């Protein structure tokens, strides 16, 4: 009986739950986009940059990978306020988790760049391509393809990290679950439903990336299917 009541309560809250899901998805996509746009240049700088550049990048990357996500959220939310700058919890979460993801993503891309081998770069340069052209036309197409499997892991991991953002007041899926749980006094059922939604979000994203990986597969190249 109680279960049905709880489900009914969630049903009545369907709009807020969808809204929360939307926030979670928006947060995930935004932070992944920031992570991608920063992570890629960071990786390129680490591999192709000079000593100073690569050292700075290593420090950045180590820093963001060593601080817990929750601590970063607090720092990004309360930090600007001490300088009199107010940013919304949502923006603070995007920045905190986005910078953090850029550190992880830079490692994904760095590994992919280093797995490519000198030969492709040498061949490109020998044709008279500048380093930048060689990176754009030759290195990146290979790097991005090779990064998809690890990037898929990153997606599912940051999706779940966004649940922490409720600690600074972002009204995401998790936060809505909390509200309904308090109202219905039945946290188990509520969070099971919330968990199922996260599960399907994860599944949809990783399925999509798996499809993308297959779609972009270079003919004749080894893939997970043929190695297995």
């Amino acid at each position: 009986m109680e279960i049905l009541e709880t489900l009914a309560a969630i049903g009545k809250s369907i709009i807020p739950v969808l809204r929360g899901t939307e926030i979670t998805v928006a947060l995930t996509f935004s932070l992944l986009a920031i992570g991608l746009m920063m992570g890629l240049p960071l990786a390129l700088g680490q591999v192709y940059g000079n000593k100073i550049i690569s050292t700075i990048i290593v420090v950045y990357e180590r820093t963001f990978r060593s601080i817990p996500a929750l601590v970063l959220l607090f720092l990004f939310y309360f930090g600007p306020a001490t300088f009199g700058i107010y940013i919304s919890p949502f923006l603070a979460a995007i920045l905190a988790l986005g910078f953090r993801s850029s550190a992880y993503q830079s490692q994904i891309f760095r590994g992919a760049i280093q797995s490519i081998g000198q030969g492709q770069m040498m061949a490109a340069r020998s044709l008279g391509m500048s380093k930048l052209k060689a990176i754009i036309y030759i290195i990146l197409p290979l790097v991005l393809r090779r990064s998809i499997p690890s990037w898929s892991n990153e997606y599912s991991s940051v999706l779940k990290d966004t649940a922490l953002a409720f600690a600074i007041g972002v009204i995401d899926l998790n936060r809505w679950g909390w509200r309904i749980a308090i109202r219905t006094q039945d946290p188990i059922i509520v969070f099971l439903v919330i968990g199922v939604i996260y599960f399907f979000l994860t599944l949809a994203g990783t399925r999509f990336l798996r499809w993308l990986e297959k779609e972009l597969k270079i003919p004749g190249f080894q893939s997970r299917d043929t190695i297995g």
Partner: protein
Amino acid sequence: MEPIEKNVLLRVRHLSKSYNKEPVLKDISFKVKKGETKVIIGPSGTGKSTLLRCLNRLTRPDSGQIWLDGVEVTSSKTNINKIRQSIGMVFQDFNLFAHLTVLDNVRIGPTRVKKIPKREATELALDMLSRVGLVDKAGAYPAELSGGQQQRASIARTLAMRPKLMLFDEPTSALDPELIGEVLIVMKNLVKSGMTMVVVSHEMGFARSVCDEIIFVEKGVIVEQGPPDELFLRPKHRRTKEFLSKITELYGKSEG
């Protein structure tokens, strides 16, 4: 200034290069005339690849000068990307761009580097592919080709840049024996067409039948250079004789 000498396309003077204080090339000098083919031989680790890579400055020499057709390659004022367009390089392991079809591999230099319109570049690329007998593989990806086909495609890729000089770094040594011939035939046709080539190779059949001069390099110095018959029949140095008989034994005389 460049010493004036007619018909000399490539001139290398007093070239030296060290890696971690370990000298790899020591005072290398030679010249290549237009239309000549020179074959560089020597034991493993003596700096043959390093020498080739210095010629298009993929590696920067520590000292010495290189001139290509009146332009000093080694000068820091020279636009190296421009110079490299006229120096084709063929690698031991082909290094075709893995994500591009054969046609795109051949086309990318003309379109992206020389900014030739795509239609013109396609015609040029197909022309080069027909020279190496690969038109029917234009749509294939490198991983779908045999090693011999990949190497021929990579030769077409450099030809599409219309180079003045072509460098080959052991172009057949990663190939199964039965695939070596098809690449050597393409290279011989290039020699016949008047291409200027510097080839690191131990295919002595190729060297004896088409090259103008063999350069024997050991431990970073040119031990001896001269026409193939001279080196084979009347080597001046004991080391040359020993090395030539060793590689003839290893690679056989008949191929090429």
